[in-house]
């Protein structure tokens, strides 16, 4: 009876090695379809603060409007308010937004003064899809 136990162990070790090899192989295969982005070439944007060209706080980027081809059409910004009261939701044309990736952070700049963003039409999904495409003439 004493020779059976090592045999089972051997079988067990063999099975474990096989499993490891298989999973390592699977990992290696999944790695084949990836690439590593250079740092400061891209960043997360949802929920990040938005500033105007002078650096004044405008609000937060809360969502994106994307067309059928996956190209962003506008950024949806929550503008102004005091501890959340009086916040307006305004959609700003994609061409007005600049994204600066620096020191592992993304600075979102909207190319118009905060007063003009705040005065834009209130954005409500489906019901009111008007977006701001340029600063209003004074």
């Amino acid at each position, binding site marked *: 009876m004493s020779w059976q136990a090592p045999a089972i162990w051997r079988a067990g070790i063999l099975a474990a090695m096989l499993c490891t090899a298989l999973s390592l192989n699977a990992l290696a295969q999944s790695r084949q379809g990836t690439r590593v982005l250079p740092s400061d070439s891209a960043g*997360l944007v*949802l*929920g990040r*603060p938005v500033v105007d060209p002078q650096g*004044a*706080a405008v609000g*937060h980027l*809360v*969502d994106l409007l994307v067309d059928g081809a996956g190209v962003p059409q506008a950024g949806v910004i*929550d*503008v*102004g*308010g*005091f*501890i*959340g*009261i*009086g*916040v*307006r939701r305004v959609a700003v044309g994609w061409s007005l937004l600049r994204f600066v990736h620096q020191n592992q952070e993304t600075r979102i700049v909207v190319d118009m*003064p*905060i*007063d*003009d*963003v*705040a*005065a834009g039409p*209130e954005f409500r999904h489906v*019901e009111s899809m008007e977006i701001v495409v340029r600063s209003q003439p004074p």
Partner: protein
Amino acid sequence: MKPDRGVDWLTLLIATSGSAYGAFIPVYLTSQGWTQTRIGLVLTISTIASVVCLVPAGFLVDSVGPRRRRLLTCALLGVGIAPLTLSLFPHPFPVVAAMVLQAASGAVLTPAIAALSLALVGHDALGDRLGRNARYGSIGAGLGALVMGACATWGPERVVFLIAGLLMVPALLALRAVGPDRLDPEPVHEDETVVVDRFALLRDGRLVVFGLCLALFQIASIAVVQLSSVAVTARLGAQAGMVIAAFVVVPQFVAAWLSPWIGSLARRHGRRPVLLVGFMTVPIRGLLFSLIAQPVALIPVQALEGVGGSVFGVMMPLVAADLTRRTGYYSVCLGLLGLADGIGTAISPTLAGWVADIWGRQAAFWVLTGVGVAAVALLALAMPETYRPIAQRRAQTARTA
């Protein structure tokens, strides 16, 4: 520290900590990269939790009676742990758990503080005590809004919740300073029969009328500032923050100034006149907001919200105490009124937003004003005086004896 001071500090610290919630939660979760759908879900869960907890929490406070101190400690710990969790672990499960914990602890705290006040001073001095509670609650809410606003502007958003949580450490110390209950402050059986039927409260028509009045008050009141401050942002852009801050803070400081006086007025002249004056400020404010377009000119109008809020904050627990003097179940009664308050608060922005979408913002102010008039009318026509001074009660007992 005197027992009175202990309750003052408790109400102040709880109100300061509470000012981190409400409209700021979506701002905070957005800054943590949460999607709008998920934020909406969390807010719905927390609203449901706070509605579901109100009446059972009242029942719990009533059933522990004089041993409510331990319950208060637990509730304070809950109100402290919830914002710390929000601040340190802004992930889905901890956030939902924290919001539910906050809702449950908050539902316990409000009636427990009122019951503590009643036990400390008895029915006849309760108006003055609740006036003080409202004063310190308003100071806390006003200071809290300013501190949280400063944190949110200059620091990372999570500091707001860190502070909100840490404030419960001094609150626990303040609770220790509250002395023992006054022994049997006003033995009811001395001059009146106590109703032992536990459903007597639910059959009291005055409770239904008062609850309806409170709900209408909140429907007419809550959305006014929200509606106008969104318009202020559109009009003033960068300067809007200061004006909206004034909209929020001015009423709190007016209420802090007036509340003790409201409490003593209610003792000297009865509840009805005070309630009527307080309720009348709501439609007047709605009308002024619809007439005045200049945002800065609206800041003094917000003093009216201070008057209304002060009357609401003092009279809701005071009338509840009147209604339950013979039946008991004070905290259950507060829970039911809190339900009416919560429903009104929830309906108000929805109704105003809906009307504003179809007929414009002006029409929304008119509808809110109309609801305010309805609240005053219901109060004037259907709500009887609930206060009977102790001398009057003694006289009546003497007659029946």
